[in-house]
């Protein structure tokens, strides 16, 4: 409850963060209920291709005469699902690895950190492209796993250094003297204290995953089937949207959808940052 009231107080004072939060909420609602309200694929009519915006098609139509807005609404769900799943996987792996490594220390810490270093060094996006091109799937869970393959490492490092400093604090000492088992120590004692890192990395993880996911569809590395924003841009580009003016809405609408969401996430995450960071929480 304290968290909710803090968050609300910050949001009230930070207009950018408030707007960001509202936009993120709207996208989530659209992703959840959108596909039940809007359908894609039943009003194809080549006579309607590349229509300018109108009342029936507020963002115009694509090459097949389908409404661009309804495609954007339907395309929100696959993007958001993979983004949230990937961020959840990264956070889970990063937190567990970081806490265990930092708390247990010694040889375990050394080995885990060397492995983490490897994942930090290998460039993430090229590795994702390589794996995705061989696996070639649009299954959201598999895609999320592929997207998180290196992204957990940064969080694991940050959490580890937190765990290192928590290890010598009084409450951890007290818990250790009571003989609390490792699982309890990590889950009950350490985890609540790294909450800020987790929350912010979760939001930034979503933006990173969406960046890479849309990129995979843009380049045609993930299979082009169904509707999502990356596929829409990919199709618009391959139909020559760069060279004509009548498909501008078709090309730029999904791009705007992505940019608005990414920017909203970044501004919202700034509010979370100030909720958790008491030094920034002044007034």
């Amino acid at each position, binding site marked *: 409850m304290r968290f909710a009231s803090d968050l609300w107080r910050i949001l009230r004072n930070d207009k950018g963060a408030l707007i960001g939060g509202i936009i993120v909420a709207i996208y989530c609602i659209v992703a959840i209920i959108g596909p039940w309200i809007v359908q894609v694929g039943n009003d194809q009519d080549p006579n309607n291709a590349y229509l300018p915006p109108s009342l029936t098609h507020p963002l115009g139509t694509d090459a097949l005469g389908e409404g661009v807005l309804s495609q954007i609404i339907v395309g929100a769900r696959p993007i958001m699902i993979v983004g949230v799943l990937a961020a959840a996987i990264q956070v889970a792996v990063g937190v567990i690895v970081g806490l265990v490594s930092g708390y247990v220390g010694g040889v375990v810490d050394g080995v885990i950190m060397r492995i983490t270093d490897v994942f*930090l*060094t290998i460039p*993430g996006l090229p590795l994702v492209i390589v794996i995705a091109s061989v696996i070639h799937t649009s299954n959201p869970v598999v895609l999320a796993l592929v997207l998180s393959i290196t*992204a957990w490492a940064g969080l694991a490092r940050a959490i580890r250094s*937190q765990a290192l400093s928590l290890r010598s604090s009084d409450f951890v000492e007290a818990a250790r003297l009571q003989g609390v088992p490792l699982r309890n120590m990590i889950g009950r004692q350490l985890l609540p204290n790294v909450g800020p890192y987790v929350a912010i990395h979760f939001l930034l993880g979503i933006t*990173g995953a969406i960046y890479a996911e849309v*990129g995979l569809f843009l380049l045609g590395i993930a299979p082009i089937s169904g509707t999502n924003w990356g596929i829409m841009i990919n199709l618009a580009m391959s139909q020559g949207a*760069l060279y004509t003016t009548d498909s501008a809405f078709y090309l730029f609408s999904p791009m705007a959808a992505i940019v608005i969401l990414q920017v909203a996430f970044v501004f919202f995450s700034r509010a979370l940052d100030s909720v958790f960071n008491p030094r920034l929480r002044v007034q």
Partner: protein
Amino acid sequence: MAVYIAKRLAMALVIVFIVVSLSFFMIRLMPGNPMSALQAQLQMQGGLTPEQIQQKINAIYGVTPTGPLWQQYLTYVGNAFQGDLGRPITNPGTTVVAVIAQALPWTILVVAVSLVISFLVGIAIGSSMAALQNSRFAKVMTFVVSLLSAIPNYLVAIVLLYLLANTWPIFPTGGAYSVDVTPGPNLPYVGSLLYHAILPTAAYVITSFGGWALGMKGSAVSVLGAEYVRAAESRGLSERRITRSYVGRNSMLPMITQLALSVGFMFGGSVFIETYFQYPGVGYYMIQSVNQRDYSLMMGCFLLITISVIVTNLLVDLLYPLVDPRIASPAARKRAADTPPSAAAAGDSGAVPVGGSMA
């Protein structure tokens, strides 16, 4: 110092080894892997004896499909470390290494120039935001910079292409230089080369200088509040000396670390930017080879991008002791390791790589 360098070099070699192994695994062991696919395809075509098929596969992937797995693995790794990565399927007349060697300078040119520009611009904006805290300039710039750093670079590339290459054809739509100049150290060639590099560089810089500015601002603000800065002020040191040696140098430290992290991100971004601008660098060839299912070239490009990132990281690591003398002195390093709490936490709070977590 020698131990420090040796450790870094060993780590770099281990990573190269892991990536080579991964590429063997990808080519040879994945279900439906390209090697067995090629084998099946050659058998379907007929007219070839099993030995000829094996020779062909061997020529392309550098691996004989029959024979024990460990032997295939050793051959592959051995060849890779001698610089033999096989031949591209789509163009067996040349070697993967030759294709990549041609492409690498273009990628390095654009990535290095963009990195330097966005680093300098970002540091300048970030430090002035920290100096003029709570001013209108700082507020507006914080907004602009957060906005720009949240936009994916491929979308900026598309917008630049649409506006500046097609709607108003000011810049070329693609290529590294125009067809009517002869490559060599002559003025038209260099001019054309720079002209073609402007849009790709712009796409990088627009999306990445914001991350530097935000990072620099955060770092400088935390240094401004430090005790030693107040101590220096009370000692009556000149404004200039404090800014340079006390604030400037210390707030640059985390930025230099970020440099290593962001190089990987820049090379990753080359995949999009070079594809859209048809810029003949490593990222362009990587996507080409993915689309043509040319796995030996694809893994070659990946290996090369990884090696470039490792080499740059090594360079930054070697640069680091110059900026932070504590690294080079074992005693200071020991002291830093013994007192992890606040120092480590402060250093790592900026650990979110520039441009999001896909670094």
